[in-house]
């Protein structure tokens, strides 16, 4: 799946790949504004429903990322308008949504990267992965992790650093985020 060339989704397998690569990034991007994971999830499911319906006739000229960014953004706007009576989000957030540009999809990028990091973590050695997880996901300090695992703080630092470097290498090999 390339992100740069014009794109046509030819099969269910290809569609599934797009879905798997973009579902969580889109949910997190949308959730930043909607601030409700269930609603965000529904908006993204709807985004993919629309894409599914169009997939046979659609040729994406810009990039898949840009296309999905715009579709999700529009689906979010639809959703908010449709549920106008229920005040879903703050005016401030609403304003931010209406100000989102069509062409600049960099708003989605950090979430794609985070998703790729999560996937790449699966390739880390178990111990290395666990220390990285404790540090990044649970926000424990090096001291806390050291105490928890009964290892030295130095060893925790080393592990986190090694995981970071390793993840960079994995991503360079497996992902297109650095292209």
């Amino acid at each position: 799946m390339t992100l740069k060339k014009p794109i046509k989704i030819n099969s269910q397998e290809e569609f599934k790949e797009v879905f798997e690569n973009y579902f969580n990034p889109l949910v997190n991007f949308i959730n930043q504004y909607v601030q409700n994971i269930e609603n965000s999830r529904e908006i993204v499911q709807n985004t993919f429903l629309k894409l599914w319906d169009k997939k046979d006739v659609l040729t994406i000229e810009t990039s898949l990322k840009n296309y999905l960014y715009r579709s999700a953004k529009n689906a979010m706007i639809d959703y908010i308008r449709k549920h106008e009576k229920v005040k879903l989000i703050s005016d401030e957030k609403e304003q931010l949504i209406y100000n989102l540009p069509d062409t600049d999809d960099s708003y989605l990028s950090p979430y794609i990267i985070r998703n790729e990091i999560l996937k790449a973590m699966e390739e880390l050695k178990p111990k290395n992965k666990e220390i990285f997880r404790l540090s990044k996901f649970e926000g424990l300090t090096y001291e806390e992790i050291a105490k928890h695992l009964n290892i030295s703080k130095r060893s925790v630092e080393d592990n986190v650093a090694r995981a970071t470097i390793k993840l960079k290498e994995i991503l360079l090999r497996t992902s297109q985020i650095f292209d």
Partner: protein
Amino acid sequence: MILEDHILLKHIENTASVKEAELVDAWMRESLDNRKHYQRLLTVYYESKHLKTFKALDVDAEWNDFISNKVVFHEPIENSLPHRKIFLYATAASLILISAFLFIINADNTISRSATDKLVSFKLPDNTAVTLFPNSSIDYSEDFSLETERIVSVAGKVRFNVIPNSKSPFLVESKLITTKVIGTVFTVNTYNPMVPSVNVEQGTVSVIEKEERSNVRILKKGDSVVFTNGDFLDVLSTPIFKKAIAPVIPKKKKPKKKKKEPVIAKPQPKPQQKAPQPKKVIPEEPKLSSYTVNHVLEFLDKKHEKFSKSRRAKMKDDDIISLNLNMSLDEILDIFKKEYNLELEEGKCEGCVKLKKISKK
């Protein structure tokens, strides 16, 4: 010249020695490829910090929802409403399936649910939304409802969005504390059962020590409290952006700690409240005056991360993205201007900015 990644990482973390830093700076000037290499490491380092707030839904389950729904969708029904309903039912049904193995009805009529390595979100019978963080669990009675007092007990870290009902208060029990609410959004963190904490995103909650029921703290939106060594630490209001960056301003007089020390004589406040390695932070400061945007960002992120821990649960996501690497220089500078009361000058060196403090109002 080839530089090892771990030296680059030290540079990113600002823990490199002067000599190492010079080495890295020289290496980066050498070629665009080197700078790209550095940038990639920086990206992983920087984005990893945000993994905590990244919600990873089970994509396989979402795909199954999606694709099974497709069967229905292909039927030539014009009215969109039935679709919608079927869609929702399908979702609900599959959610139950996925979480079935985590869902245990105990002999004593309590229901247990737990999350192992992923976030698990579901609704209680009263429609209260619950998010279980990894390695967390919740128990509640089989006949849990709005009719009575709503009581759940938790282990680990659990977020609640409680449906308001003045007749039926909502109580979250953990080992040492009880958190009582009427309707609000909050997180109870008991990863360390002896040092539980509560953070409030919306509304008001009271937190009660179990041993000493008169020991109560009232938390409002944005507040957090930590219970440690037998008492509550101060209610910590979410610090605003400016405060967090304040140590950058050299003349700053009141260190963060000051606020708490007179009140609490505890030898060890919450570890994250400690300024880590103050010795290293001080020499960093002058660097800010002539650093590239990457350095400024990375420096900022340090500060950001430090304070964000205390406000993490409530942190506006825009704050995260507002310092994202994908922003243009101008946008970042705008934030600087607004948030830190700094004046920015285009520097002499390429890609560098100069930061100058505006005299205090």
